[in-house]
Protein backbone atom coordinates (compact mmCIF):
# COMPACT_ATOMS: atom_id res chain seq x y z
CA UNK A 1 0.00 0.00 0.00
CA UNK A 2 1.23 3.50 -0.81
CA UNK A 3 1.87 5.92 2.01
CA UNK A 4 -0.90 8.33 1.12
CA UNK A 5 -3.49 5.57 0.76
CA UNK A 6 -2.51 4.31 4.20
CA UNK A 7 -2.61 7.78 5.75
CA UNK A 8 -5.91 8.53 4.02
CA UNK A 9 -7.51 5.36 5.36
CA UNK A 10 -6.04 6.01 8.81
CA UNK A 11 -7.54 9.50 8.83
CA UNK A 12 -10.93 8.13 7.81
CA UNK A 13 -10.77 5.58 10.64
CA UNK A 14 -9.83 8.21 13.21
CA UNK A 15 -12.69 10.45 12.10
CA UNK A 16 -15.12 7.56 12.25
CA UNK A 17 -14.01 6.58 15.72
CA UNK A 18 -14.28 10.19 16.83
CA UNK A 19 -17.81 10.43 15.43
CA UNK A 20 -18.61 7.35 17.52
CA UNK A 21 -21.60 5.94 15.63
CA UNK A 22 -20.47 2.31 15.45
CA UNK A 23 -21.02 -0.50 17.89
CA UNK A 24 -18.24 -1.65 20.16
CA UNK A 25 -17.19 -4.60 18.04
CA UNK A 26 -16.90 -2.49 14.87
CA UNK A 27 -14.94 0.15 16.77
CA UNK A 28 -12.46 -2.40 18.03
CA UNK A 29 -11.96 -3.69 14.50
CA UNK A 30 -11.42 -0.12 13.23
CA UNK A 31 -8.98 0.57 16.03
CA UNK A 32 -6.92 -2.50 15.21
CA UNK A 33 -6.86 -1.61 11.53
CA UNK A 34 -5.79 1.93 12.45
CA UNK A 35 -2.93 0.68 14.59
CA UNK A 36 -1.72 -1.58 11.77
CA UNK A 37 -1.96 1.28 9.26
CA UNK A 38 -0.03 3.69 11.45
CA UNK A 39 2.68 1.03 11.84
CA UNK A 40 3.05 0.50 8.12
CA UNK A 41 3.13 4.28 7.57
CA UNK A 42 5.95 4.56 10.08
CA UNK A 43 7.76 1.76 8.33
CA UNK A 44 7.43 3.41 4.92
CA UNK A 45 8.60 6.74 6.31
CA UNK A 46 11.58 5.13 8.01
CA UNK A 47 12.47 2.73 5.22
CA UNK A 48 13.87 5.29 2.74
CA UNK A 49 17.62 5.32 2.92
CA UNK A 50 18.40 8.51 1.08
CA UNK A 51 20.05 6.74 -1.82
CA UNK A 52 20.87 8.54 -5.04
CA UNK A 53 20.82 6.35 -8.12
CA UNK A 54 22.01 7.50 -11.50
CA UNK A 55 20.42 6.21 -14.66
CA UNK A 56 22.98 6.61 -17.41
CA UNK A 57 21.78 6.19 -20.94
CA UNK A 58 23.11 9.07 -22.97
CA UNK A 59 26.79 9.93 -23.03
CA UNK A 60 26.74 12.84 -20.66
CA UNK A 61 28.92 14.47 -18.11
CA UNK A 62 31.87 15.16 -20.34
CA UNK A 63 30.35 18.25 -21.90
CA UNK A 64 30.72 21.22 -19.58
CA UNK A 65 27.67 23.42 -19.74
CA UNK A 66 26.71 26.78 -18.53
CA UNK A 67 23.50 26.05 -16.70
CA UNK A 68 22.96 29.41 -15.15
CA UNK A 69 25.27 28.68 -12.25
CA UNK A 70 26.84 32.11 -12.70
CA UNK A 71 23.55 33.69 -12.02
CA UNK A 72 23.54 35.19 -8.53
CA UNK A 73 19.81 34.42 -7.97
CA UNK A 74 19.18 31.31 -6.03
Amino acid at each position, binding site marked *: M*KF*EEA*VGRLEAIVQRL*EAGGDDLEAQLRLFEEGVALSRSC*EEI*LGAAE*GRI*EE*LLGDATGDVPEDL*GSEDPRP
Partner: protein
Amino acid sequence: MEILSVGDVARVLSGVLEAEPRLRLVCVRGELGSVKAHPSGHFYFTLKDESAQIRGVMFRSRFRNVAFSPKDGDMVLVTGQVAFYQAGGQVQIYAEELEQLGLGAQLMRLKEIKARLEAEGLFRPERKRALPLLPRKVGIVTSSSGAALRDILQIARRRHPGQDLVLAPARVQGQGAAAEVVRALRRLAAHPGVDVIIVGRGGGSQEDLDAFNDEALVRAVAACPVPVVSAVGHETDITLVDFAADQRAPTPSAAAELVVPVQRELALRLWELRQRLGQGLRRSAERRRDRLAAALQRWPMRRPQEILLRRREQVQAATRLLGHLGRSGALRRRARLQAAQGRLGGLDPRGPLRRGYALVMRDGHGITAAGQLRPGDRIDVQLADGQASALVDRIETEEEVR
Protein backbone atom coordinates in the same frame (compact mmCIF):
# COMPACT_ATOMS: atom_id res chain seq x y z
CA MET B 1 55.28 36.80 -48.77
CA GLU B 2 55.24 39.40 -46.07
CA ILE B 3 54.74 38.24 -42.51
CA LEU B 4 51.95 40.18 -40.79
CA SER B 5 51.15 40.66 -37.16
CA VAL B 6 47.59 40.02 -35.90
CA GLY B 7 47.20 43.75 -35.52
CA ASP B 8 48.18 44.24 -39.18
CA VAL B 9 45.43 41.82 -40.29
CA ALA B 10 42.93 43.51 -38.02
CA ARG B 11 43.85 46.92 -39.39
CA VAL B 12 43.51 45.72 -42.98
CA LEU B 13 40.15 44.18 -42.17
CA SER B 14 39.05 47.41 -40.53
CA GLY B 15 40.14 49.38 -43.55
CA VAL B 16 38.26 47.10 -45.94
CA LEU B 17 35.08 47.39 -43.95
CA GLU B 18 35.40 51.15 -43.58
CA ALA B 19 35.95 51.50 -47.30
CA GLU B 20 32.72 49.71 -48.06
CA PRO B 21 30.04 52.41 -48.33
CA ARG B 22 27.16 49.93 -47.84
CA LEU B 23 28.45 49.13 -44.36
CA ARG B 24 28.91 52.71 -43.22
CA LEU B 25 25.24 53.26 -42.55
CA VAL B 26 23.12 50.13 -42.44
CA CYS B 27 19.56 49.43 -41.54
CA VAL B 28 19.25 45.77 -40.55
CA ARG B 29 16.13 43.82 -39.78
CA GLY B 30 16.50 40.76 -37.53
CA GLU B 31 15.69 38.97 -34.31
CA LEU B 32 17.42 39.88 -31.07
CA GLY B 33 19.16 37.21 -29.07
CA SER B 34 21.64 36.96 -26.19
CA VAL B 35 20.75 40.44 -25.07
CA LYS B 36 22.78 41.73 -22.18
CA ALA B 37 22.44 45.10 -20.55
CA HIS B 38 25.87 45.60 -19.05
CA PRO B 39 26.16 47.49 -15.73
CA SER B 40 28.20 50.09 -17.62
CA GLY B 41 25.02 50.97 -19.49
CA HIS B 42 26.11 49.52 -22.82
CA PHE B 43 23.77 47.08 -24.49
CA TYR B 44 25.10 43.93 -26.18
CA PHE B 45 23.11 41.68 -28.46
CA THR B 46 23.10 39.31 -31.37
CA LEU B 47 21.04 40.03 -34.47
CA LYS B 48 19.97 37.00 -36.45
CA ASP B 49 17.69 35.51 -39.05
CA GLU B 50 17.32 31.96 -40.40
CA SER B 51 20.70 31.97 -42.13
CA ALA B 52 23.11 34.19 -40.22
CA GLN B 53 23.86 36.21 -37.16
CA ILE B 54 25.95 39.21 -36.30
CA ARG B 55 27.05 40.63 -32.99
CA GLY B 56 26.05 44.10 -31.99
CA VAL B 57 26.60 46.72 -29.37
CA MET B 58 24.80 49.91 -28.52
CA PHE B 59 26.67 52.31 -26.32
CA ARG B 60 25.11 53.91 -23.30
CA SER B 61 24.78 57.33 -24.87
CA ARG B 62 22.61 55.86 -27.64
CA PHE B 63 20.89 53.11 -25.66
CA ARG B 64 19.50 55.75 -23.27
CA ASN B 65 17.22 56.90 -26.09
CA VAL B 66 15.71 53.48 -26.77
CA ALA B 67 12.06 53.61 -25.78
CA PHE B 68 11.42 49.91 -25.09
CA SER B 69 13.31 47.26 -23.14
CA PRO B 70 14.64 44.94 -25.81
CA LYS B 71 14.68 41.25 -25.01
CA ASP B 72 15.45 37.95 -26.66
CA GLY B 73 13.12 37.13 -29.50
CA ASP B 74 12.21 40.73 -30.28
CA MET B 75 12.08 41.53 -33.96
CA VAL B 76 13.98 44.79 -34.42
CA LEU B 77 15.32 47.25 -36.92
CA VAL B 78 18.89 48.30 -36.11
CA THR B 79 20.44 51.38 -37.67
CA GLY B 80 24.18 51.84 -37.37
CA GLN B 81 27.60 51.06 -38.77
CA VAL B 82 29.26 47.69 -39.34
CA ALA B 83 32.89 47.66 -38.26
CA PHE B 84 35.63 45.35 -37.07
CA TYR B 85 36.19 45.37 -33.31
CA GLN B 86 39.90 44.73 -33.26
CA ALA B 87 40.37 43.98 -29.56
CA GLY B 88 37.54 41.43 -29.66
CA GLY B 89 38.33 40.07 -33.09
CA GLN B 90 34.74 40.47 -34.17
CA VAL B 91 32.79 42.12 -36.86
CA GLN B 92 29.89 43.82 -35.22
CA ILE B 93 27.23 46.35 -35.76
CA TYR B 94 27.50 49.57 -33.76
CA ALA B 95 23.88 50.49 -33.28
CA GLU B 96 22.76 54.09 -33.28
CA GLU B 97 19.07 53.33 -33.24
CA LEU B 98 16.95 50.37 -32.23
CA GLU B 99 13.30 49.97 -33.15
CA GLN B 100 10.92 47.18 -32.28
CA LEU B 101 9.18 45.46 -35.20
CA GLY B 102 6.84 43.09 -33.44
CA LEU B 103 7.09 39.48 -32.45
CA GLY B 104 10.16 37.59 -33.55
CA ALA B 105 9.87 34.60 -35.80
CA GLN B 106 10.80 32.24 -33.01
CA LEU B 107 8.14 33.62 -30.72
CA MET B 108 5.64 33.28 -33.55
CA ARG B 109 6.61 29.64 -33.96
CA LEU B 110 6.27 29.11 -30.22
CA LYS B 111 2.83 30.65 -30.23
CA GLU B 112 1.82 28.42 -33.09
CA ILE B 113 2.98 25.23 -31.32
CA LYS B 114 1.34 26.32 -28.11
CA ALA B 115 -1.99 27.01 -29.82
CA ARG B 116 -1.88 23.63 -31.54
CA LEU B 117 -1.08 21.63 -28.40
CA GLU B 118 -3.64 23.61 -26.45
CA ALA B 119 -6.27 22.74 -29.04
CA GLU B 120 -5.31 19.08 -28.63
CA GLY B 121 -6.08 19.43 -24.94
CA LEU B 122 -2.54 18.74 -23.73
CA PHE B 123 -2.65 21.62 -21.25
CA ARG B 124 -6.14 21.01 -19.87
CA PRO B 125 -6.38 21.39 -16.08
CA GLU B 126 -8.27 18.10 -15.69
CA ARG B 127 -5.20 16.29 -17.06
CA LYS B 128 -3.12 17.48 -14.11
CA ARG B 129 -2.41 14.74 -11.61
CA ALA B 130 -1.85 15.17 -7.89
CA LEU B 131 1.68 14.73 -6.60
CA PRO B 132 2.28 11.85 -4.19
CA LEU B 133 2.38 12.73 -0.50
CA LEU B 134 5.51 10.70 0.06
CA PRO B 135 7.16 9.54 -3.17
CA ARG B 136 9.08 6.28 -2.92
CA LYS B 137 11.67 7.67 -5.31
CA VAL B 138 11.92 11.11 -6.87
CA GLY B 139 13.15 11.12 -10.45
CA ILE B 140 15.23 14.07 -11.61
CA VAL B 141 15.98 14.99 -15.22
CA THR B 142 18.58 17.72 -15.51
CA SER B 143 22.24 18.20 -16.28
CA SER B 144 24.49 16.33 -13.89
CA SER B 145 26.79 19.36 -13.75
CA GLY B 146 24.20 22.08 -13.34
CA ALA B 147 23.19 24.33 -10.50
CA ALA B 148 19.66 22.98 -10.75
CA LEU B 149 20.74 19.52 -9.60
CA ARG B 150 22.75 20.96 -6.73
CA ASP B 151 19.77 23.03 -5.59
CA ILE B 152 17.36 20.11 -5.81
CA LEU B 153 19.65 17.76 -3.88
CA GLN B 154 20.24 20.36 -1.19
CA ILE B 155 16.55 21.09 -0.64
CA ALA B 156 15.61 17.40 -0.79
CA ARG B 157 18.20 16.48 1.85
CA ARG B 158 17.08 19.26 4.13
CA ARG B 159 13.41 18.29 3.94
CA HIS B 160 13.76 14.53 4.07
CA PRO B 161 17.24 13.06 4.56
CA GLY B 162 15.90 9.60 3.76
CA GLN B 163 14.29 10.52 0.45
CA ASP B 164 15.48 8.20 -2.33
CA LEU B 165 16.36 10.02 -5.54
CA VAL B 166 17.03 8.81 -9.06
CA LEU B 167 18.94 11.06 -11.43
CA ALA B 168 18.68 10.65 -15.17
CA PRO B 169 21.26 13.09 -16.54
CA ALA B 170 20.55 14.90 -19.79
CA ARG B 171 21.97 17.88 -21.57
CA VAL B 172 19.46 20.66 -21.17
CA GLN B 173 20.59 23.05 -23.88
CA GLY B 174 22.06 22.94 -27.33
CA GLN B 175 21.52 20.65 -30.29
CA GLY B 176 19.75 17.40 -29.35
CA ALA B 177 19.10 18.44 -25.77
CA ALA B 178 15.32 18.05 -26.04
CA ALA B 179 15.65 14.49 -27.35
CA GLU B 180 18.02 13.64 -24.49
CA VAL B 181 15.56 14.99 -21.96
CA VAL B 182 12.80 12.91 -23.57
CA ARG B 183 14.90 9.74 -23.29
CA ALA B 184 15.83 10.50 -19.67
CA LEU B 185 12.15 11.07 -18.86
CA ARG B 186 11.22 7.69 -20.35
CA ARG B 187 14.01 5.90 -18.47
CA LEU B 188 12.81 7.37 -15.20
CA ALA B 189 9.15 6.65 -15.86
CA ALA B 190 10.07 2.99 -16.43
CA HIS B 191 12.25 2.81 -13.33
CA PRO B 192 10.55 0.93 -10.46
CA GLY B 193 9.57 3.09 -7.49
CA VAL B 194 9.73 6.46 -9.25
CA ASP B 195 6.47 8.17 -8.26
CA VAL B 196 7.18 11.69 -9.48
CA ILE B 197 9.69 13.36 -11.80
CA ILE B 198 11.27 16.81 -11.69
CA VAL B 199 12.44 18.01 -15.07
CA GLY B 200 14.29 21.27 -15.33
CA ARG B 201 17.33 23.45 -15.45
CA GLY B 202 18.64 26.70 -14.05
CA GLY B 203 18.11 30.11 -15.56
CA GLY B 204 19.54 31.16 -18.88
CA SER B 205 18.80 33.14 -21.98
CA GLN B 206 15.67 32.50 -24.00
CA GLU B 207 17.75 30.42 -26.42
CA ASP B 208 19.17 28.36 -23.57
CA LEU B 209 15.66 27.41 -22.51
CA ASP B 210 14.63 26.52 -26.04
CA ALA B 211 14.88 22.76 -25.52
CA PHE B 212 11.93 23.07 -23.14
CA ASN B 213 9.79 24.48 -25.93
CA ASP B 214 10.46 21.45 -28.12
CA GLU B 215 7.19 19.90 -29.26
CA ALA B 216 8.37 16.30 -28.83
CA LEU B 217 9.49 17.02 -25.27
CA VAL B 218 6.24 18.80 -24.43
CA ARG B 219 4.32 15.77 -25.71
CA ALA B 220 6.56 13.39 -23.74
CA VAL B 221 5.90 15.34 -20.55
CA ALA B 222 2.14 15.27 -21.15
CA ALA B 223 2.26 11.53 -21.90
CA CYS B 224 4.52 10.62 -18.98
CA PRO B 225 2.82 7.93 -16.85
CA VAL B 226 4.26 9.49 -13.70
CA PRO B 227 3.38 13.05 -12.55
CA VAL B 228 5.90 15.62 -13.77
CA VAL B 229 6.94 18.86 -12.10
CA SER B 230 8.62 21.34 -14.42
CA ALA B 231 11.29 23.68 -13.09
CA VAL B 232 12.78 25.65 -15.91
CA GLY B 233 14.88 28.73 -15.29
CA HIS B 234 13.61 31.45 -13.03
CA GLU B 235 10.26 32.67 -11.91
CA THR B 236 9.66 34.72 -15.02
CA ASP B 237 10.72 32.09 -17.55
CA ILE B 238 7.80 30.11 -18.90
CA THR B 239 8.25 27.36 -21.45
CA LEU B 240 5.78 25.03 -23.14
CA VAL B 241 6.92 22.18 -20.88
CA ASP B 242 5.55 24.23 -17.96
CA PHE B 243 2.09 24.10 -19.52
CA ALA B 244 2.19 20.34 -20.07
CA ALA B 245 3.62 19.46 -16.65
CA ASP B 246 1.31 18.39 -13.84
CA GLN B 247 2.72 21.22 -11.82
CA ARG B 248 5.01 24.11 -12.64
CA ALA B 249 7.64 25.16 -10.13
CA PRO B 250 9.19 28.60 -10.56
CA THR B 251 12.70 27.25 -9.88
CA PRO B 252 14.41 23.86 -9.38
CA SER B 253 14.58 24.56 -5.63
CA ALA B 254 10.84 25.23 -5.54
CA ALA B 255 10.28 21.95 -7.40
CA ALA B 256 12.15 20.06 -4.70
CA GLU B 257 9.98 21.74 -2.09
CA LEU B 258 6.83 20.73 -3.94
CA VAL B 259 7.89 17.13 -4.38
CA VAL B 260 9.85 16.17 -1.26
CA PRO B 261 7.83 16.23 1.97
CA VAL B 262 9.29 17.43 5.23
CA GLN B 263 9.90 14.17 7.03
CA ARG B 264 9.32 15.62 10.50
CA GLU B 265 5.93 17.00 9.45
CA LEU B 266 4.82 13.59 8.21
CA ALA B 267 6.09 11.94 11.36
CA LEU B 268 4.20 14.51 13.45
CA ARG B 269 1.03 13.94 11.46
CA LEU B 270 1.32 10.20 12.03
CA TRP B 271 1.89 10.72 15.73
CA GLU B 272 -1.20 12.92 15.94
CA LEU B 273 -3.31 10.36 14.12
CA ARG B 274 -2.13 7.65 16.49
CA GLN B 275 -3.08 9.80 19.47
CA ARG B 276 -6.51 10.50 18.05
CA LEU B 277 -6.99 6.82 17.24
CA GLY B 278 -6.51 5.85 20.89
CA GLN B 279 -8.55 8.78 22.14
CA GLY B 280 -11.35 8.02 19.72
CA LEU B 281 -11.76 4.52 21.11
CA ARG B 282 -11.38 5.70 24.70
CA ARG B 283 -13.97 8.39 24.27
CA SER B 284 -16.40 5.91 22.76
CA ALA B 285 -15.94 3.64 25.77
CA GLU B 286 -16.47 6.60 28.09
CA ARG B 287 -19.61 7.59 26.26
CA ARG B 288 -20.95 4.05 26.64
CA ARG B 289 -20.15 4.04 30.35
CA ASP B 290 -21.81 7.44 30.80
CA ARG B 291 -24.91 6.28 29.01
CA LEU B 292 -25.11 3.19 31.20
CA ALA B 293 -24.60 5.25 34.36
CA ALA B 294 -27.25 7.71 33.25
CA ALA B 295 -29.69 4.89 32.52
CA LEU B 296 -29.09 3.40 35.97
CA GLN B 297 -29.81 6.79 37.48
CA ARG B 298 -33.30 7.04 36.01
CA TRP B 299 -36.23 6.10 38.28
CA PRO B 300 -37.27 2.78 36.68
CA MET B 301 -33.92 1.29 37.59
CA ARG B 302 -33.84 2.77 41.06
CA ARG B 303 -37.54 2.09 42.02
CA PRO B 304 -38.89 -0.67 39.82
CA GLN B 305 -42.01 -0.98 42.03
CA GLU B 306 -43.01 2.42 40.70
CA ILE B 307 -43.55 0.94 37.27
CA LEU B 308 -46.48 -1.06 38.66
CA LEU B 309 -47.69 1.91 40.62
CA ARG B 310 -47.64 4.10 37.55
CA ARG B 311 -49.46 1.49 35.45
CA ARG B 312 -52.20 1.30 38.04
CA GLU B 313 -52.48 5.08 38.04
CA GLN B 314 -52.80 5.01 34.28
CA VAL B 315 -55.64 2.48 34.40
CA GLN B 316 -57.43 4.49 37.02
CA ALA B 317 -57.07 7.66 35.04
CA ALA B 318 -58.49 5.96 31.97
CA THR B 319 -61.47 4.61 33.92
CA ARG B 320 -62.13 8.03 35.34
CA LEU B 321 -62.09 9.54 31.90
CA LEU B 322 -64.52 6.95 30.60
CA GLY B 323 -66.96 7.64 33.44
CA HIS B 324 -66.76 11.31 32.83
CA LEU B 325 -67.49 10.85 29.17
CA GLY B 326 -70.51 8.71 29.96
CA ARG B 327 -71.92 11.40 32.21
CA SER B 328 -71.21 14.13 29.86
CA GLY B 329 -73.49 14.77 26.90
CA ALA B 330 -71.16 13.33 24.35
CA LEU B 331 -72.05 9.70 24.86
CA ARG B 332 -75.73 10.36 25.31
CA ARG B 333 -76.00 12.44 22.20
CA ARG B 334 -74.32 9.67 20.20
CA ALA B 335 -76.82 7.07 21.56
CA ARG B 336 -79.77 9.27 20.63
CA LEU B 337 -78.53 9.75 17.14
CA GLN B 338 -78.18 5.99 16.67
CA ALA B 339 -81.70 5.34 17.95
CA ALA B 340 -83.15 7.99 15.63
CA GLN B 341 -81.29 6.48 12.69
CA GLY B 342 -82.75 3.04 13.56
CA ARG B 343 -86.25 4.44 13.70
CA LEU B 344 -85.85 6.25 10.46
CA GLY B 345 -84.87 2.96 8.81
CA GLY B 346 -88.11 1.35 10.18
CA LEU B 347 -90.25 4.15 8.72
CA ASP B 348 -89.17 3.50 5.18
CA PRO B 349 -92.28 1.89 3.63
CA ARG B 350 -90.15 -0.20 1.34
CA GLY B 351 -88.33 -1.72 4.30
CA PRO B 352 -90.96 -4.39 5.00
CA LEU B 353 -91.40 -5.02 1.29
CA ARG B 354 -87.75 -6.03 1.06
CA ARG B 355 -88.36 -8.50 3.81
CA GLY B 356 -91.21 -10.20 1.86
CA TYR B 357 -94.33 -8.26 2.96
CA ALA B 358 -96.68 -6.73 0.43
CA LEU B 359 -98.67 -3.51 0.36
CA VAL B 360 -102.28 -3.82 -0.75
CA MET B 361 -103.95 -0.79 -2.33
CA ARG B 362 -107.30 -0.03 -3.82
CA ASP B 363 -107.84 3.05 -5.95
CA GLY B 364 -104.54 4.45 -4.65
CA HIS B 365 -105.43 4.02 -0.95
CA GLY B 366 -103.64 1.60 1.31
CA ILE B 367 -105.74 -1.27 2.73
CA THR B 368 -104.82 -2.10 6.33
CA ALA B 369 -107.67 -4.48 7.29
CA ALA B 370 -109.45 -7.38 5.60
CA GLY B 371 -112.76 -5.82 6.47
CA GLN B 372 -112.10 -2.94 4.12
CA LEU B 373 -112.37 -5.30 1.14
CA ARG B 374 -115.28 -6.95 -0.64
CA PRO B 375 -115.11 -9.93 -3.00
CA GLY B 376 -114.79 -8.64 -6.58
CA ASP B 377 -112.69 -5.65 -5.55
CA ARG B 378 -109.75 -4.91 -7.89
CA ILE B 379 -106.63 -4.35 -5.88
CA ASP B 380 -102.97 -3.57 -6.52
CA VAL B 381 -100.36 -5.62 -4.69
CA GLN B 382 -97.16 -3.65 -4.25
CA LEU B 383 -93.94 -5.74 -3.87
CA ALA B 384 -90.35 -4.61 -3.37
CA ASP B 385 -89.47 -4.72 -7.07
CA GLY B 386 -92.83 -4.18 -8.73
CA GLN B 387 -96.57 -4.69 -8.44
CA ALA B 388 -99.34 -7.03 -9.42
CA SER B 389 -103.06 -6.50 -10.10
CA ALA B 390 -105.51 -8.93 -8.48
CA LEU B 391 -109.21 -9.61 -8.05
CA VAL B 392 -110.45 -10.27 -4.48
CA ASP B 393 -112.08 -13.66 -4.42
CA ARG B 394 -112.85 -14.29 -0.79
CA ILE B 395 -112.61 -12.43 2.53
CA GLU B 396 -111.73 -14.03 5.81
CA THR B 397 -111.29 -11.94 8.96
CA GLU B 398 -109.28 -13.09 11.94
CA GLU B 399 -112.39 -13.91 13.88
CA GLU B 400 -113.65 -16.22 11.10
CA VAL B 401 -110.32 -18.00 10.85
CA ARG B 402 -110.16 -18.52 14.52
